[in-house]
Every structure is written in structure tokens, then in C-alpha cells.
């Protein structure tokens, strides 16, 4: 068989493909089929290549399963075992149903990601063209550590797509329809189910606890719709209802939400009143404490509805916001490690202050409506001004030093007296000035400046690309050191050959081109130098390895 390490999830015998009997294998990452009596697969598709599966209708004589690939090709399997054909097909279908979405997402996501990166980054695209399209290195190699780097730096602002919230009325969308014979039909879609799960985690938990083992999915939802949990106005009747626990949990959740209090003091009704009247004073009599017992059923059901709506809305809101909260938490955690946070509440005005200021502000009475900016919170402004400094070299010049130095110079300048007896002769002085002027003997280096005028811009562009490509390759090469695994060994050898190939196919033609155009300056010298360094490093490493081996 092709590879030993693959896990086989399902084996179905007697499956025909192109009128040939064979065996169908479903493995961890691909689906494969091999004709009977041969030990190789004639058909093998990675799950990520499969777009969808299709099955023949139940009534048909042939029990078939068709796989449609992204490329548009399709493969049809015919389940030929008379007695169990249908069952076999179902098993294969079920398994595929579970497997395909996983890979689909992954594949699409990766492809999309690559595509997006190439589109957004022209330099990268050029690099891709230089290296991959011209087959200096393979696409996998190219992406290998690009994507890795990208995956780590996940929360880039543009990758963070806005989460789609939940419709507030998702329960309204499943209005029951009478089916004509004293029954009700509820139409559930996966969207609605997901909404229910996201809004009511307790139901989701119940679902995962019960569904495959105790109840079928259908039974579960039937019970859900029958429960008082769904019809909140019905007062709790039975306790055997599996959802009564959910109701309790919700109640608890609501209570904890309430107990948490509110952040904005302006809406905190509890602390609104400054001084309440003592008990027994006032016109409005307090509600008798026994009110719960003598409340009518209708009243308490009304109260339950109101509670439910508040809870429902809060949960819908929370479900939409949940995703965003997590990074915020992380951010606050990380910021607390940098030592600044200890007294951060001294710097950041508390919510209350901000809200109060907002409340008293009359924006139209002020003259300039300046844009609101975020205040920069600096604890050590020194550190900000000088940037991070390695620990050893702490001898940076402080601003005080600089001021002192300037003062010193100014002082010296003020007291400067030309000593006229020891000055140079005028001819010597003028020749020195000439030598130091641009174009003079001592300013030969100034010719370098002209390079952008000397070289035509297309050559410049090409050179830039070469530099980028070479840099990329060298980065791959150098990242292999120290070579301590066999994988790295392989890679470093490959990289060396890549570099050589690069020199052959890219650099040398460019050099020749330069010579053809009689551009005297040695533009590629530095590139070659870099490559040489890499080669010599490689040789050192290789000789060492040889020595170790012998």
C-alpha cells in the first residue's frame, strides 16, 4: 500500500469504479480506491480537493456515490454488494459528511490566505514570480515559513473579520405551522440551531449530553419546543423536563449578570438616589413583602415573560460580542505584565469621570471641535524618547548631556580667538577647500551618489528584484544553521543548490546583460559576495560533517 502511516477509517469492499470491482478506502486525509487483487490505488483524492459528494436517489437500482472535485472532474463509485449496498453507501456518506467540511475550510482558508497575501504585497508577489514561477524553489518551500509566520501573527486587523451577530428574532422565524392533523410543524435550519446554541449555551450543553445516546436529534428538538423553557409564559410544571435545568441555569446567569452591577454610574439605578426615606415615611407604601405568594398565576407569568425578554436580549447581545471580548481580555493581561499597569488607573480616567465629562459637554458651545485623540500614556518618558536600549550599553547620552555639549561648544565659539600667526597660507587653504568640495580629490566617494543617474531605471528595478529574491533565498539558507536535525541537513543542501541555481538562471544573465549595456560599475558585486559567503559557510559545514563522519 502507498503509505503505511495513514490511518484507515473505513474500508468498503465490492465497490465498482468504471465497471471494475475494487475496494474503497477512507483514510485520514484522502479517499482511495484500488481494483481487486492489486496493491495500489488507481483513484486517490485528497479530501481537500473534493468539492462535494452526491448520492443516487433512494429508489434507484444502482447505489452510487459521486465525488465532485474542485477541478470539475468527478468520480463515481458504485456499491455493488447486494445485501449491504445501501448501508455501505450510508456509512461512507456519513463519514465523508463529517470529514469534508473540515478539510474544505482548511483548504479554502489557506488558499484564500495565500491569494490575499500575494495580492496585498506586490513585493511578495514579485518574489513569488521570481522564485516559484521560475521554479527556483517549489511553492511549498516558498510558503513553508511565510504562512507559519502569518499564522502566529493572527490578529492582524484585516484578518479579523467582523463577526456576524444573531438575529434577535430567530425564535420568531420558527413560528410553528399547523400540519392539518392536530400537529405542529417547526422548521429548523442549521442557522437557527446555531443561533439557539450560541444564545443559550445551556441548551447546547443539553444537546451534547443527550443527543446521540439518549435521544435522537428530532426527539430533542421536539422536547425543546414542548418544554416550558421555550414557552416561557407557561409556569414551571414538570420537573422531569430536561430543560428545567436550563431554565435554572439561565436564572443563575441572569442573577450573576445583575449582581455584577453596571459599569456606567449614570445608569446605575441603585445608586441614583442619594438619601432614601426611612422605612415608614413617605406616601408611596412599600409593596408588601408577601407579594409573591398572593400573586396570581397570570401576574407571575407576565413577570416571567418580561424577565425572559430581558434575558434573551442580553444573551443575543452577548453572543454577538463574545468573540471580541477575548482578545480584549488578552490585551489587558499582556499589558499588565509590562509593569505599567500597576498605576494605570491613575493615568486612565475611570469610567465615571469620562461619563460625567461627556454628560456636561456642550460641543456646539465650544469654539474648535478638535478631534478627539487618545492620550499617550507614558510612565517613563525617557524610555520613550530613547527607545529600547540593550542592557549592557547604558551609556547613552541623556538630553542633559547633549545640552551641556551644545553649551560647551557655544561657549568655546564665543571665546574663539583666531591665532593669526599660525594660520595656513591662502593657497594651501584654497586647495584644501577644493579637495573637500564635491568632485575634489577627497570627495571621490561622491561618485556613488550618481549611480541612480547612471543606471537606467529598468535595470534598477531588476536589481531590486534580484536583491529581494536573493535575500529571501539567503534567509532560507541561513535559517538552517545551526544544522542539528536531518531535516535541516536536507534543507541546507537543497538551499545551497537553490542558491546555485539562482546564480545560474538569474544573476548570471543579469550580469551579462549589464556587460552588454556597458555599464562599468560592478552592480552585482555585493550580491555575489553574499552568495560567496553562503557557499563558503556551506563548505565549512560540509567539510566538518565529512570529518565527523569519517
Amino acid at each position, binding site marked *: 500500500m502507498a503509505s503505511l502511516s495513514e490511518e484507515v477509517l473505513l474500508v468498503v469492499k465490492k465497490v465498482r469504479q468504471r465497471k471494475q470491482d475494487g475496494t474503497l478506502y477512507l483514510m485520514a486525509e484522502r479517499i482511495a480506491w484500488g481494483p481487486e487483487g492489486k496493491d495500489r490505488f488507481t483513484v486517490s483524492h485528497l479530501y481537500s480537493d473534493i468539492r462535494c459528494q452526491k448520492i443516487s436517489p433512494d429508489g434507484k437500482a444502482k447505489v452510487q456515490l459521486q465525488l465532485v472535485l474542485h477541478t470539475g472532474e468527478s468520480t463515481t463509485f458504485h456499491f455493488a454488494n447486494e445485501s449491504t449496498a445501501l448501508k455501505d453507501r450510508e456509512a461512507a456518506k456519513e463519514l465523508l459528511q463529517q470529514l469534508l467540511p473540515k478539510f474544505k475550510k482548511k483548504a479554502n482558508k489557506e488558499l484564500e490566505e495565500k491569494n490575499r497575501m500575494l495580492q496585498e504585497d506586490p513585493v511578495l508577489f514579485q518574489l513569488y514570480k521570481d522564485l516559484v514561477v521560475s521554479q527556483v524553489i517549489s511553492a511549498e518551500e516558498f510558503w513553508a515559513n511565510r504562512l507559519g509566520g502569518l499564522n502566529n501573527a493572527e490578529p492582524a486587523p484585516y484578518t479579523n473579520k467582523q463577526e456576524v451577530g444573531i438575529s434577535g428574532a430567530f425564535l*420568531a422565524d420558527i413560528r410553528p405551522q399547523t400540519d392539518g392533523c392536530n400537529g405542529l410543524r417547526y422548521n429548523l435550519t442549521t442557522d437557527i440551531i446555531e443561533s439557539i446554541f450560541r444564545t443559550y449555551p445551556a441548551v447546547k450543553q443539553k444537546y451534547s449530553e443527550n443527543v446521540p445516546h439518549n435521544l435522537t436529534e428530532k426527539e430533542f428538538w421536539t422536547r425543546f419546543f414542548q418544554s416550558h423553557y421555550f414557552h416561557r409564559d407557561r409556569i414551571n410544571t414538570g420537573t422531569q423536563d430536561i430543560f428545567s435545568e436550563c431554565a435554572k441555569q439561565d436564572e443563575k446567569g441572569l442573577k450573576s449578570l445583575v449582581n455584577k452591577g*453596571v459599569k456606567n454610574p*449614570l*445608569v446605575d439605578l441603585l445608586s441614583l438616589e442619594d*438619601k432614601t426615606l*426611612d422605612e415608614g*415615611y413617605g406616601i408611596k407604601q412599600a409593596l408588601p413583602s408577601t407579594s409573591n405568594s398572593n400573586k396570581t398565576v397570570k401576574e407571575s407569568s*407576565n413577570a416571567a415573560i*418580561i424577565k425572559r425578554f430581558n434575558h434573551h436580549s442580553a444573551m443575543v447581545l452577548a453572543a454577538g460580542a463574545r468573540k471580541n471580548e477575548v482578545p480584549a481580555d488578552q490585551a489587558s493581561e499582556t499589558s499588565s505584565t509590562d509593569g505599567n499597569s500597576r498605576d494605570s488607573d491613575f493615568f486612565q480616567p475611570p469610567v465615571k469621570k469620562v461619563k460625567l465629562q461627556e454628560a456636561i459637554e456642550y460641543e456646539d458651545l*465650544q469654539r474648535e471641535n478638535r478631534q478627539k485623540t487618545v492620550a499617550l500614556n507614558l510612565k517613563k518618558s525617557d524610555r520613550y524618547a530613547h527607545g529600547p536600549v540593550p542592557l549592557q550599553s547604558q551609556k547613552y547620552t541623556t538630553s542633559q548631556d547633549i545640552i551641556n555639549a551644545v553649551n560647551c561648544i557655544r561657549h568655546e565659539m564665543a571665546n574663539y580667538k583666531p591665532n593669526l600667526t599660525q594660520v595656513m597660507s591662502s593657497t594651501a587653504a584654497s586647495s584644501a577647500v577644493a579637495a573637500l568640495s564635491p568632485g575634489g580629490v577627497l570627495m571621490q566617494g561622491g561618485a556613488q551618489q550618481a549611480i541612480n543617474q547612471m543606471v537606467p531605471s529598468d535595470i534598477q528595478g531588476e536589481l531590486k528584484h534580484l536583491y529581494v529574491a536573493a535575500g529571501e533565498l539567503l534567509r532560507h539558507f541561513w535559517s538552517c544553521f545551526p544544522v542539528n536535525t536531518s531535516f535541516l541537513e536536507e534543507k541546507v543542501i537543497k538551499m545551497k543548490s537553490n542558491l546555485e541555481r539562482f546564480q545560474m538562471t538569474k544573476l548570471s544573465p543579469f550580469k551579462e546583460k549589464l556587460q552588454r549595456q556597458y555599464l562599468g560599475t560592478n552592480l552585482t558585486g555585493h550580491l555575489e559576495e553574499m552568495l560567496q559567503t553562503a557557499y563558503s559557510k556551506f563548505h565549512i559545514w560540509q567539510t566538518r560533517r565529512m570529518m565527523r563522519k569519517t
Partner: protein
Amino acid sequence: MKLNIEGLLVYFPYDYIYPEQYSYMLELKRTLDAKGHGVLEMPSGTGKTISLLSLIVAYQRAFPLDVTKLIYCSRTVPEIEKVVEELRKLMEFYAKETGEVNNFLALALSSRKNLCIHPEVSALRFGKEVDGKCHSLTASYIRAQRHSNPDQPVCRFYEEFDSVGRQVPLPAGIYNLDDLKDFGRRKGWCPYYLARYSILHANIVVYSYHYLLDPKIADLVSKELAKKSVVVFDEAHNIDNVCIDSMSVNITRRTLDRCQNNVDTLQHTIQRIKDTDAAKLREEYRRLVEGLKEANVARETDVYLANPVLPDEILQEAVPGSIRTAEHFLGFLRRFLEYLKSRLRVQHVVQESAPQFLKDIFEKVCIDRKPLRFCAERLQSLLRTLEIADIADFSAVTLISNFATLVSTYSLGFTIIIEPFDDRTPTIANPVLHFSCMDPSIAIKPVFQRFQSVVITSGTLSPLDIYPKILDFRPVTMASFTMTLARTCLCPLIVGRGNDQVALSSKFETREDFAVIRNYGNLLLEMSAIVPDGIVAFFTSYVYMENIVASWYEQGILENIQRNKLIFIETPDAAETSMALEKYQEACENGRGAILLSVARGKVSEGIDFVHHFGRAVIMFGVPYVYTQSRILKARLEYLRDQFQIRENDFLTFDAMRHAAQCVGRAIRGKTDYGLMIFADKRYARADKRGKLPRWIQEHINDGSLNLTVDETVQLSKHFLRQMAQPFRQEDQLGLSLLTLEQLQSEEMLKRITQIAHQA
């Protein structure tokens, strides 16, 4: 900018000014000049507070001898803090303009719960607990005991304050509640007592109504405030109810049982003290013979704010002999208690006046009027003598003795109603004795008498003339200001009919009518589809809202609304409602949009603003009449008719309309804000209702929008919202509703400004 208000230099901390602010300051200055009282109505969001502060601070600086102090009363803690922040802004402007640090001291005062920094005490959740715990650590005899017993826990912050805090006055500056706490922490002083002490010499004090209007608190806190103060009641549209609440007492069986326990405890304590330290009781007796002369001296020299619970006559006399010794007084209390218990054993409703009650008590248990009047004072003295640690435990007996004093002091303005059961649950015996104040002027009278100028102001005080009537004072200025607008940013619409022509009304007869409920639902549904962000809907009462929500739920209307917006609903539980409110704001903030169903007269309608996108539309379902079947209300209406010649219906409508105006006014908090105000009841179209809305709302109701159907409302709203969504820049306002200094000084503008104030 610097303004010239009839010769007074006023620093105004903004570059522009609204014309109505200028007009408001003019009226305010005239009030102060006349040393009289004023009633000023100015729309919310037009910078009322900053105008008030700017003018009064300028006045104080110009005439330091005429106005020594500003006492600014507001309703809620956030309001108080907002005022202080605005004041800070003003003072910063002063410092910048004049270049000198001025020596103004301004501070906010709040209850212990908001000011305590004691680690254990401040951790308690309820104000009452905090007060009780604080008292048990700071009462004078507790601290005296510490001398003999060093283990006695005391509050170190109070100790520190007591030993050094009074020597140096609080440095000049603006102290909000948090600033006081910070200062207290730095110095190790108790911020609450520091603030209470400092209000005596502060230039500006900001605190809640109760510190002036509730006699029990006012006596402790505000007694010694200078006479030449200006008192401002902001958000004063409900001031009569605050007054009444502070003077009314309810007594239930539970109160009496607890009172009985209190009396027993007192008995034991007295017995114990008698065995150990009889001298203490003798000392108290001597003091009582001396009488309350000291208080009398103080009041005569006009140092104290009069306490309505402590009438003048009491001060001139000594405590009557019959209740002078502790045992006699306890016996007296027992008799009184038994009498009250017998009164609660009724089968039918009894209503009587205070003199009738006194006559009855004299006949039945031979209690005279005179000792009853001294009851509250006598009990305080006893509690002090007995060194009771936790006053909170004795709230029941304090309540009873306050009741005794009140009922024997006022023959007019109060009524006694004894109900054997609650009207809604006639089968359950739950007797209550309501001693209810019907005359708000009793509580506020000392304020008007004592202070030189009292200004009552709010966004909704219409009709203006009713407040002087019910509070019984003679204002020198009464004015209502309109809102000058560059664009009509409010859109009041009266929806009288559903699409099926059913008349919409919350009146009692059609309350249960499904057609009305359905049409209300349709209105909300349609609005939820066209209004961006937040919608706030108010119902007339909680029960009504519950019923409507239930039937909307049954009819599936709520589910359809949910397609457009999330729904949040006010509940009787304040914590739950706070949560709902915050979530509501979150939903408006993140663009999902939400609807808040709430109740007029509820906490939300009184204290929460829905600025900008938090409230793009307010829908008022029905006219929020008070529950008219209550006997207390009936008695009050009768009293108003007899004493002030205010007809029942006028008062009821006035009360309903001020609450409706409060509700719809919640959405407009400034000229850049905009919002729909939908009155969903055909009765709003009537002149007597409409006429009682504030002028700044009234003048935008045109005749075409008096009896709209739901569809027409939607059309008009769409149009309005589309117009309002256009960018609105400062330049659009300039010269019309926003003025520079030059524009303000022009002749023509000054002429226009005189028309803004509408004298009542």
C-alpha cells in the same frame, strides 16, 4: 466669554452662548437683585446649570456681602456630580481669565454610603447599614467609652478628623464626592464629617433635596446655613412630592410590633442604668426642666433653619412633667402604642383629621395634646442618655414618636386614613395607618422663610403658576424660556387613531380593549422599523405595561419587533433594570438598535437621560395619570380644592402632563440632539392637556399633527428623521440659536432675546 448682564460682569466658560441662556441669566439676576424667589422653566439641554452657576458665582464675587452662599439642590447623585464638574469648568475658566487663583470653596455632600472610606463600613451595600455602622463607631458615648475601654472599636478616620480636622478649614477648591474621598484618604480624615462641617463656610454647596426638605435630616445638616444664601432647586418639577413624602408616615402592624420590642429594650436599659448609674438619669431630668431654651435662643437670633417637626411653641416651654422621667415616658409610649394597636383593629376604612384623632385619643386613653408634641424631642433625649449604640434598631419607636409630634402639631394639612386591607387584596388583613401630608408647603416653608432667594427651576414646570400656589410662596420672577432652534430638532406627534380608525387611549374603559393594544403594538412595530438606534417607550403604570407586554407576546407582535431591534423591559427590581439599561445602551452603541419599555413615574423616567442615539424616539403610550382611586390622593385633591382653589381635574391633568413631559423630554438633551416625541393617546390633542405641556414642546405641535393615524405618523417620522440625519454644523446654528459675543451685543439680537422669556 465675558458677558455684561445688566451691569454685572459674568464669566461664561464657553466661546458661544445660546440666546436663552442669556435671557435666563437676566431673569435670574433680577430675582437675586430683588432678594426674592423665582420660578424658571428652561428646556433641558440648553445649558441651564452652567448659566445658573456662572451668574450666581459672578454675583457672589460682585456682592460678597449680599450673597454669601449658593446652596444647589439636585435630585440624584449623578446630577450632583455633574453640577460640581460644571462648576469646576467654570472655576478653571475664571483662573485662566483672571490669572489669579480664587479662593472659592465648593463641595458636594452626599450620604455616608457615597462618602465613607472606612474599609469595613464602606463595603456595606445599603445606605441604612452604612449609617447604622457608622453611628455605632462614631457616637459620642461610644467614643467616651473608649477612654475606659481601649478595645472599643472606633472609626480612626473620624477620630483623626475630630482631633485636628476642624482647626484648619478645607483649602479652597472644588470638591466632588471622589475628591473629598481622596482628600480624606490623604489626610486620614472622615470625608463625610469633613464635608458636613465644611458646608458651613463653603461658598457653594451641592447636595440632594432631602438635606433641606426632610426635617429629620435638615435639622442635622443644614440647620446653621447662612441666611444670605441663594437656594436653587434644580429638576424641581416633583418638588411637591418630595415635600409631602418627607412629612408623611405609614404605620403597619409590623411597625407597632417592632416598636413594642423597642420599648421593652428601653425598659431593660433604663432598669439597668438605674441600678448602676442613677445620676445619669437625674442629670437628664434636670436638663429637661431647663427646657429647650438653647434651641430657642438660636432660633430667635435667626441662626437656625426652622424645623417644621419642632414647632416654635415647644421651644419656649419645658418638657411637660408627665413624661419627664424616663419611666413615665415609657409608660406614656406604651399607652400610645396600645391605642394605635386598637385603632388598627378596624374592619372598615376610617378617615379623620388630626383634631379628631387627638380628641379620640384623649377620650380613650387620656393622652393630652401637649406631651404628644414633645414626644420626638423626649425620645431623642432618652436615646442619647441611654447611650444606645445602634439608632437604626430604634427606627420604629422613632417613627411613632415623630408621628405623635406631627399629629399634635398640625391641625391642618394632614389627614389620617386607616385601611384594614389593601384594595387589591381585600381578603388579606393588612391594616395600615396612613398619616399623610397633603400640603407640600409645610415642609418647604422654613426654606422660603429663612433664605433670601430660592430659585425653582427645571425643564418642565408648566403651568408655571401652579407651583407658587401649591408651595405657597410669592415669586418675584416667573418665566418660561423657549428653545431657539436652527432646525426643528424635536418632533412632537399625537397619534390618536390606529390604521383601522380605532381611537387610541389608555383610559380606563378601553384599557383591556384588544384593538387598542394591537394598535399600540403596531405603532411600536412600525416605529422600530424606521427609527435608527434607540427607542424608549413609556407606559402609564407597571401593571399596564405587564398586561400589554403579555398580550403583545401572545399576538406575536414582540417577535416581529425583535426582527428590528432588541427589547429590554424595566422591572420593579432596580438592579435588574440597571442591567437592562446598560445592555440597552450597549445595543444602541454597537448599532444593533434596541427598544426600552419603561414606566412613567418609574426610576428610568426620572433619572436617566437618553442622549443622541440612545433615544431617537420616545413613545408615550397613554396619559400617565396617577392611580386615582387611592384615598390618600382623594384627600389631597380635596385639600387642594379647599385650600388653594385648584380643581381636582386640573391638578390631575397637571400631574399627568408633567410626567409625560418628563418622559418625552428625556430624549432631547441639547440642540445637536434630535428625537421624535410620540404621544399615543387621543386625549393629548385636547387643549387642556396640550396647554399644560412645556412651551418649548407645545410650540412645535402643529394643528396637522393632532390626530394622526399610525401610518401618517410613520410618514412624518420618516421625513423628520431623514432631515435630521443630514450633517449639522456649528455654522448652521450660528447667529440663530448660537451666538458669539459680537452677535449677542447687537441691538436686534437683544430685542429678540427679550422675547424668549415668557413671563407667566
